[in-house]
């Protein structure tokens, strides 16, 4: 009897231990998020001023100035990346859902593998292809590197969104004699639109925060760019250069830029995730 009771107790205790462990893991994993957001807001806020948004960066260690060139560089390069990444990604994603087969299978697998390829490798690749060929660091090559990173992400999210469209909708279109291309554009893409847009927005947020691919391509710059073939600054490069410099006021600058970057990246994430979730629950 006593043995039975203790066994029962052991089972209950181990069950409770498991619950405590798993819950603890979750909260431990959240500590860095809270700490990062808190530190960035507190330290970054100190850097904010009108100049911070309207002037270009001072030399490292210097005072005054702002991050206008970095904001410009980030947005320009992400725009170039989007021009490459969105069409190629969406079309390739559509191919995967429309023409399943051996090619589609390997493309999907490769796209997944490519999302795991370290971003610094993409930097080297674009350096060899473009920068070394034209002997120029440029915003354009930075944008291409980010675009390379964006393509596989958009391919996968587009494919997943299209997969969710029920096949009866697709077959309905085809049964009416509508061509494949029109079914795709007017029926499938429209139905899967919010999912595809969510995927694109998350991909934009992701490449906006990339640093490593820009080290060898955009290089960084203290000035506003006059042409796409000039070296360009970016928020991420600025954080790296100023954050690792041995000057106190450079650090403040880095935190300020990190705050802006975090606002853009997390803001984009929060908006699209909340919107897509509302949409899902709303349609049920």
């Amino acid at each position, binding site marked *: 009897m006593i043995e039975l009771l203790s066994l029962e107790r052991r089972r209950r205790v181990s069950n409770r231990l498991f619950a405590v462990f*798993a819950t603890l*893991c979750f909260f431990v994993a959240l500590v860095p998020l809270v700490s990062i957001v808190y530190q*960035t807001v507190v330290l970054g806020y100190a850097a904010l001023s009108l100049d911070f948004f309207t002037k270009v960066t001072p030399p490292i260690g210097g005072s005054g100035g702002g991050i206008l060139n970095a904001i410009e560089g980030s947005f320009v390069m992400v725009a170039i990346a989007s021009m490459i990444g969105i069409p190629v990604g969406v079309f*390739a994603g559509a191919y995967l859902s429309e023409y399943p087969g051996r090619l589609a299978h390997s493309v999907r697998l490769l796209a997944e593998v490519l999302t795991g390829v370290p971003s610094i490798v993409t930097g080297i*690749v674009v350096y*060899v292809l473009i920068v070394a060929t034209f002997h120029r660091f440029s915003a354009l090559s930075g944008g291409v590197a980010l675009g390379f990173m964006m*393509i*596989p992400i958009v391919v996968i999210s587009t494919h997943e969104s299209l997969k969710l469209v029920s096949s009866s909708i697709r077959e309905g279109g085809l049964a009416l004699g509508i061509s494949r291309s029109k079914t795709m554009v007017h029926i499938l893409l429209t139905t899967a639109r919010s999912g595809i847009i969510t995927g694109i927005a998350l991909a934009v947020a992701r490449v906006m925060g990339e640093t490593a691919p820009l080290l060898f391509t955009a290089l960084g710059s203290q000035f506003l760019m006059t042409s796409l073939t000039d070296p360009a600054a970016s928020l991420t490069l600025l954080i790296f250069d100023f954050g690792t410099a041995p000057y106190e006021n450079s650090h403040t600058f880095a935190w300020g830029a990190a705050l802006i970057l975090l606002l853009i990246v997390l803001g984009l994430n929060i908006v699209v995730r909340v919107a897509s979730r509302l949409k899902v629950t709303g349609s049920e």
Partner: protein
Amino acid sequence: MQRRILPRRAGKKARRPDLFWALLSVAAVVILIITAINLYALINGSTASLRYFGLGFLVGTDWVPNPPEGPPLLGALPAIYGSVVTTLIALLLAVPISLGVALFQAELAPRRLRAPSIFLSELLAAVPSIVYGLWGLFVLVPFMRDYVNTQLKTWLGFLPLFSGPTNGLGMLTAGVILAIMIIPYGSSVMREVIAVVPRSQREGSLALGATRWEMIRTSVIPYARTGIIAAIVLALGRAIGETMAVTMVIGNVARISPSLFLPAETIPSVIANEFTEVAGNDLYLSALFELGLILFAIAFLMNLAGRILITRLQFKGGSDRVA
């Protein structure tokens, strides 16, 4: 491809040139081209180093890019060693915690808290690596120096692992920040492979009177084992290529030492850190690119292996919503 697939499916009409098909397939083929370009550019960029150093590059321990006289003396072993050690530390910390997070989100959290808890994990995964690096440099490094490393030294200082002076920059701190960064990724893959475990498995186990923990231990984890291994392999692939955050906290010294407190370097941190110091030294640049080639090969194989494991699992579980 067109001739093989379409005629069977859509009859003779589809034999006409199909612009829609052509457009989509070109986009799909771009993925193949990018993969090929990656390989081509990396091999092309590292040819000089491959020729000059040969296989000795992988085991060389010296890193003297600009010796007073003679050609550069470059070996990748310190960087490979640093990558292996930091990744192992990261996995040691991240695997149990990721599994705990995944089980919390998939099995334990009340239904109402499930979506918000996943949302927070997603936010953690969305924080850019450079912000992790900045936070690592100014928050984690002092924390490790003042609390963790000093305590480890007091209690376990007799081990060579925890010996030597510590200023917070080093392999242990790099491993910790890597762990923090791969937990959201590892736990999300684990969560989704756990979700594939059929209800009947769980219900059978609960019906036999199992507690929740016994149900997870005897029914869920064994069933999801392949997927969990895949998640670990994928997380490993991420950790080995993580660049910015590690570069900012590891100290960047080419050294092979058992002490986890001492500054070291990893494959990506060397590339990121020394690229600007090349200054026309072509062999040096080529050696950095060869490091990139090694990194690409490792990450590519890890990701391929992980993905193939997960694809198999999808067949087994009959669900296509994994990762």
